């Protein structure tokens, strides 16, 4: 749907999104520009009350947080724990010594507040509050509290509605596989890099996300899947079933998880165990040509 902000008589505006059945609402006053990345706009939705509600606030300065450092990503963000919940700090040497953005969020990832450092954004029209990786972090942490997980995978759906999911690290062949399938069949590609898995009444569903890979496929679509494929380049096509524990481990190794959050990890592990019990998981060694596509389509394991 078109990404149109709703405005209230009090002068506030609001946009909402739905990604992998997680809804996210963003509310701000008119001093904030409605700036959203192009890739998240197709995921706009109409939601009056979202799973996660975030309010935007300006801060004149952002000093060091008081909480305990839980995790340093080594990139732009660090995570702290404070008494009501968590604090994500986003910093870059390009934007000065202070964090350019801070997210306060409760432990359940229901309510959040983004503080944008005014000194880092002299031109507010250049400021995208949900800019990657904040949007993905919020959804990923919320999934850790639900029955779902974000995985490093390419996912697509054929004209008959069959879903095909290929998990893989970088270089495993996700983009190649997406391209091969797209050339040979009329496919709806949900994502070439990031897929969200959810379980619903014993069925496993995959959802597209805005966080695409090199081929830039990102669709707000879903498809039911009947098996997992773990991608691996090889000289010949070969499909081998992975047993329960091994399958869970291989999928976890290709998942985005809050490793510093024991409860979320346990929840995700339990979710993956259920998912792997419901549908089989295979290692797909594949040749990067059309024979791999047919090998999968004809496979009835």
């Amino acid at each position, binding site marked *: 749907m*078109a*990404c*149109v*902000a709703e*405005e209230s008589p009090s002068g506030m*505006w609001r*946009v909402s999104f739905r990604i992998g059945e997680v809804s996210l609402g963003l509310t701000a006053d008119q001093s904030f*520009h*409605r*700036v*959203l*990345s*192009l*890739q998240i*706009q197709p995921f706009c939705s109409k939601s009056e009350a979202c799973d996660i509600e975030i309010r935007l606030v300006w801060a004149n300065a952002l000093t060091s947080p008081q909480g305990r450092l839980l995790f340093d*990503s*080594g*990139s*732009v*963000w660090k995570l702290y724990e404070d008494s009501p919940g968590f604090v994500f700090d986003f910093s*870059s*040497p*390009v*934007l000065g010594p202070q964090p*350019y953005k801070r997210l306060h969020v409760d432990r359940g990832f229901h309510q959040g507040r983004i503080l944008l450092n005014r000194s880092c*954004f002299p031109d507010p*029209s*250049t*400021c*995208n509050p949900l*800019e*990657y*990786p904040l949007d*993905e*972090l919020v959804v*990923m942490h919320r999934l850790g509290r639900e029955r779902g997980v974000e995985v*490093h995978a390419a996912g697509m759906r054929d004209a008959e509605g069959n879903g095909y999911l290929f998990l893989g*690290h*970088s270089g495993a062949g996700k983009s190649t596989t997406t391209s091969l399938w797209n050339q040979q069949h009329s496919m709806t590609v949900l994502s070439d*890099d*990031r897929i969200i898995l959810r379980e619903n009444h014993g069925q496993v569903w995959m959802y597209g996300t*805005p*966080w*695409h*890979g*090199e081929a*830039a496929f*990102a669709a707000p679509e879903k498809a039911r899947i009947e098996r997992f494929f773990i991608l691996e380049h090889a000289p010949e096509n070969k499909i081998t079933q992975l*047993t329960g*524990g*091994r399958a869970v*481990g*291989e999928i*976890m*190794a290709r*998942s*985005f*998880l809050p*490793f510093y959050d024991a409860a979320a990890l346990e929840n995700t592990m339990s979710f993956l165990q259920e998912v792997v019990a419901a549908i089989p998981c295979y290692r797909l060694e594949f040749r990067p040509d059309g024979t791999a596509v047919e090998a999968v389509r004809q496979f009835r394991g």
Partner: protein
Amino acid sequence: MKQSQNDQVAKKFYEAPKIVTINLRPEEAVLGNCKISGSSGPGNPSCAIVPRCSTVGS
């Protein structure tokens, strides 16, 4: 007799427990890293850590 046949069908082979190491890739398991430049997603312009945006219609 029928019950006995069912029991045999249901019986699973014992598989001894074993430890298997599955490697994580920290650089991929943590969000925020960039793969490519000049596009969006994990390779979006913010990977250059200079906020650049497109404005949504309102």
